[in-house]
């Protein structure tokens, strides 16, 4: 293996000639583009629309009171 993602295999040997095959995933720039697109989409989803929800957003983060029942 050369690097994490690239594999080199011997495909054929004839006399003193060796044929090599190289397996590589799509280029890193394509991976990055996909990740960036997903993050863009999620940012746009996250941008607050209209008013904030009536219930406190951080009710989930209230310190847990052992006397309270779990909802």
């Amino acid at each position, binding site marked *: 293996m050369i690097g994490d993602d690239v594999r080199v295999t011997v495909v054929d040997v004839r006399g003193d000639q060796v044929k090599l095959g190289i397996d590589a995933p799509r280029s890193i720039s394509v991976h990055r583009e996909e990740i960036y697109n997903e*993050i863009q989409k999620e940012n746009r989803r*996250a941008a607050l629309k209209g008013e904030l929800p009536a219930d*406190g957003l951080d009710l989930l983060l209230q310190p847990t009171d052992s006397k309270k029942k779990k909802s």
Partner: protein
Amino acid sequence: MILETERFGTLHIDEEVMIQFPEGILGFESLTCFILLDRKVSKKASGAIQFLQAIDDPAIAFAVLDPHTFRPDYVPQLWDEDREVLNIQQGDQLQILTILTVPEEVRDMTANLMAPIIINKTKRLGRQVVQRLGEYATRHRLVDELERAKRLVSTEQAEVFGSSAGTDSSVAEQRNIV
């Protein structure tokens, strides 16, 4: 300066608290200036959630939260480029925030751990930093993360207190229980 927002009303902003995001955030590259607002949205709210409010577009704001409140073992990685854009130097104070996506059902809210917001508080600079593929997702459901965090903490406690019959209190004190 004065910023009129529909969501938060009239904001009186001290230039000193403005944070420059040289590249904006992904999908909002033109928004290069933000402030961090504390806003309790209801009387019961803990106030842990803050709001990243855009200066250039008063309609745009994001709910943000320190990821350590629900993911104590979160360690974001910074690339060299991030350190450059954020002008990070020794001694600078950094702040980590995650952007929350709040759907109709608030209980289903998610946090983006793949692309946290890093703020260099000392230099008043910010950037959305991208993590490696596979480690984190753009949507971590908060309810699930809080459950996981509880299990994480109780496992640590069990290791310290549960293993041996005679607990050595000095050993217990030396261990770091979060």
